[in-house]
């Protein structure tokens, strides 16, 4: 039995003028199951304050100490500390009165608003979004609200909505000892599993919020049965109503959100209030797009953003190294990227990969795409090129996950990159990213793109990357371009991405074929030679050896081909021959070396027998006769 049981229950509705601590009660403004609420004046801080006074009976307390229960609410809410949750100033007991002092929201409840008829979709969605943010914060603090309904959403005069009345809420301790199965809440908004005697969970709060959203959108709850029993049966068994049956102009995304959040099975609902929030933002985008009206104020989460700079244009071409300039007439440095020109990729397969990837990114049904390739295939460079191309129209944010991060997670690094104050938790970082991306989408009317390079596909992907992809899917605020080795989809699936290995469509940078290598090398040389310079010619055997040595891997081609030019330049020759292709390093770039003294020297005669054998093998593969043995013919 409760340790502190008052002898008589006083009439709590007649306490105007009473002073509790610093608070002078001024006006009764509400009554609830657990007590009454007064508007009071904080005589120390001179601000209006809501004072919630406990009234209880043994039945209300359900076998628990009501004072502890009451103060528990205050402690729970106090630890949420979120701008969309009604703030707790303090809690105390004075005589027979237990009270909580809390933030007074000047405005009306969503229940009062909807009593005059359904809200505009924009306003209903705005309230919903803010409530989802509050609910996410509560869940993040281990608290299940258990009574989400229009009456508990307080809409301020400034448009700010706050989630209040955590009187029924349970913290993690209570959830652990088994109180979560007690059915509380308001019938119209109570989840099926609670009706069935199951435990309250974050998912049941999501259901209640979706039912509330339905009510705000349509002017009636989803299951408006004539009795509690009828309402219960509808929650348990009736088909999920489509709000477009009442408001036909609602976007399909809105109906889809409602359908998912009101699923009978908790596992079929949104996995968290954060995911619900993201999908809600997408609905808001659709509403704004449909009406052309400015968006209702987004639920600001008080992230301090700094402006994101516009995407950097492609850097100017690098001047040609001295040897290539003076000996061969190069104006700019060749083989430093995946293509010599802005508008075209010399290798058709690269161009096709780029086009396919851009098509995927422009497809509104795609939220994330992968660009994969073997090491040195050039997929990372191609990704940078694509990012630069996209940056002309969209906001692009690129992060290389293979670089040092000083202990920061990918999401924390991205959060910093978008200009948000560094967040301590993964979820807060992710939310900051999603919010920032949503703002960019609104600003440019195109979804921004986050490019994540250096994903190691040999092991399960970082959970933060999976969350980011899921956020892209649900928020539709941005696209993700994932860049890594083959097997990227499997790595994401292993880390828990919904939809399996095929959830993120991939394009792979394949090794270049022999003729593609030829076109690629010629393309670079032609584009970087100074105007009116004589051509530099690539011999057929040089091409065959180049293909052999590089396996068509673009980064290796770049290295070997440039070194071939360096060797030829040192010999003052304009023809790249099999000697150059054989001797050029595939590891270090010679173009920027301080001296050419250490360059290899061509043996005479060329080729020696062991090299001729290799060339013959290459020639056989290309359908050519063997290298001519001309030693006995005066050659």
């Amino acid at each position, binding site marked *: 039995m409760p340790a502190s049981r008052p002898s008589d229950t006083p009439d709590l509705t007649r306490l105007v003028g009473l002073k509790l601590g610093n608070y002078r009660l001024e006006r009764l403004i509400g009554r609830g199951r657990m007590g009454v609420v007064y508007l009071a004046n904080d005589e120390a801080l001179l601000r209006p304050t809501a004072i919630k006074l406990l009234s209880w009976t043994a039945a209300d307390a359900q076998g628990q100490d009501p004072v502890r229960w009451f103060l528990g609410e205050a402690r729970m809410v106090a630890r949420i500390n979120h701008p969309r949750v009604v703030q707790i100033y303090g809690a105390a007991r004075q005589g027979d009165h237990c009270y909580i002092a809390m933030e007074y929201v000047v405005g009306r409840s969503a229940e009062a608003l909807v009593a005059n008829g359904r809200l505009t979709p924009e306003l209903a969605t705005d309230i919903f979004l803010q409530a989802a943010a509050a609910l996410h914060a509560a869940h993040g603090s281990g608290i299940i609200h258990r009574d989400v309904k229009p009456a508990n959403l307080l809409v301020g005069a400034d448009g700010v909505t706050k989630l209040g009345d955590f009187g029924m809420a349970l913290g993690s301790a209570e959830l652990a000892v088994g109180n979560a199965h007690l059915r509380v809440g308001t019938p119209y908004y109570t989840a099926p599993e609670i009706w069935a005697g199951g435990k309250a969970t974050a998912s049941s709060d999501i259901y209640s919020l979706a039912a509330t959203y339905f009510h705000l959108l349509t002017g009636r709850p989803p299951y408006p049965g004539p009795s509690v029993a009828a309402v219960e049966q509808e929650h348990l068994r009736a088909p999920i109503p489509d709000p477009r049956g009442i408001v036909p102009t609602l976007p399909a995304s809105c109906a889809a959100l409602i359908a998912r959040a009101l699923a009978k099975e908790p596992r079929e609902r949104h996995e968290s209030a954060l995911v619900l929030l993201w999908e809600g933002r997408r609905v808001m985008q659709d509403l704004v797009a449909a009406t052309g009206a400015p968006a209702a104020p987004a639920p600001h989460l008080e992230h301090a953003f700094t402006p994101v700079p516009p995407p950097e244009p492609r850097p100017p071409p690098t001047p040609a190294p001295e040897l290539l300039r003076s000996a061969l007439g190069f104006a700019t440095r060749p083989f430093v990227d995946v293509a010599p020109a802005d508008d075209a990729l010399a290798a058709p397969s690269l161009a096709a990969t780029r086009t396919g990837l851009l098509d995927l990114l422009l497809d509104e049904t795609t939220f994330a795409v992968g660009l994969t390739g073997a090491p040195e295939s050039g997929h990372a460079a191609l990704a940078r090129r694509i990012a630069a191309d996209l940056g002309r129209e969209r906001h692009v944010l690129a992060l290389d996950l293979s670089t040092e991060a000083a202990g920061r997670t990918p999401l924390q690094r991205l959060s910093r990159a978008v200009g948000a104050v560094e967040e301590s938790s993964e979820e807060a970082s992710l939310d900051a990213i999603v919010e920032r991306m949503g703002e960019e989408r609104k600003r440019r009317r195109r979804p921004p793109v986050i490019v994540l390079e250096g994903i190691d596909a040999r092991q399960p992907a970082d959970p933060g990357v999976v969350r980011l992809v899921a956020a892209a899917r649900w928020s539709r605020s941005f696209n993700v371009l994932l860049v890594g080795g083959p097997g990227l989809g499997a790595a994401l699936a292993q880390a828990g991405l919904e939809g399996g290995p095929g959830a993120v469509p991939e394009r792979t940078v394949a090794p270049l074929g022999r003729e593609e290598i030829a076109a690629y090398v010629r393309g670079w040389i032609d584009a970087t030679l100074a105007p009116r310079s004589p051509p530099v*010619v690539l*011999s*057929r055997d040089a091409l065959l050896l180049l293909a052999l040595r590089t396996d068509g891997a673009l980064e290796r081609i770049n290295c070997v081909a440039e070194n071939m030019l360096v060797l030829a330049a040192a010999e003052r020759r304009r*023809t790249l021959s099999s000697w150059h292709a054989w001797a050029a390093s595939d590891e270090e770039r010679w173009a920027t070396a301080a001296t050419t003294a250490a360059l290899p020297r061509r043996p005479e*005669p060329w080729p020696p027998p062991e090299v001729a054998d290799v060339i013959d093998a290459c020639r056989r593969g290309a359908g050519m*006769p063997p290298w001519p043995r001309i030693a006995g013919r005066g*050659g």
Partner: protein
Amino acid sequence: MTDLAQIAKIPNVASAVLGDLAGGFYDAIRVADGESIAAVTGFISTSLVDAGEQLGLGPLGRVSLAGASRACIIAVVGGSVVTVSVEPPGSLPAVERALDTSSGARG
């Protein structure tokens, strides 16, 4: 016309290289770097085949180049390219006639 041994017997022919329009290298007589010559003359021939078509010359047969120290005949026969180096350059017309006679004789 593509028999380098016969071509090499023509007076004042310093060397000869057999290649193709793609720059492939197939044979050489009296030259150390036939590969590079085949690459260059393959490149030139390909460019001139295009130019000849633009000028209405019909299929390209031969191009002669003369420098101060040496002359060169590039003959295109089907897909093959024969490069004949001539020394001194003043003997270029005689070598051209010999090549014509040689190819005409083989008919």
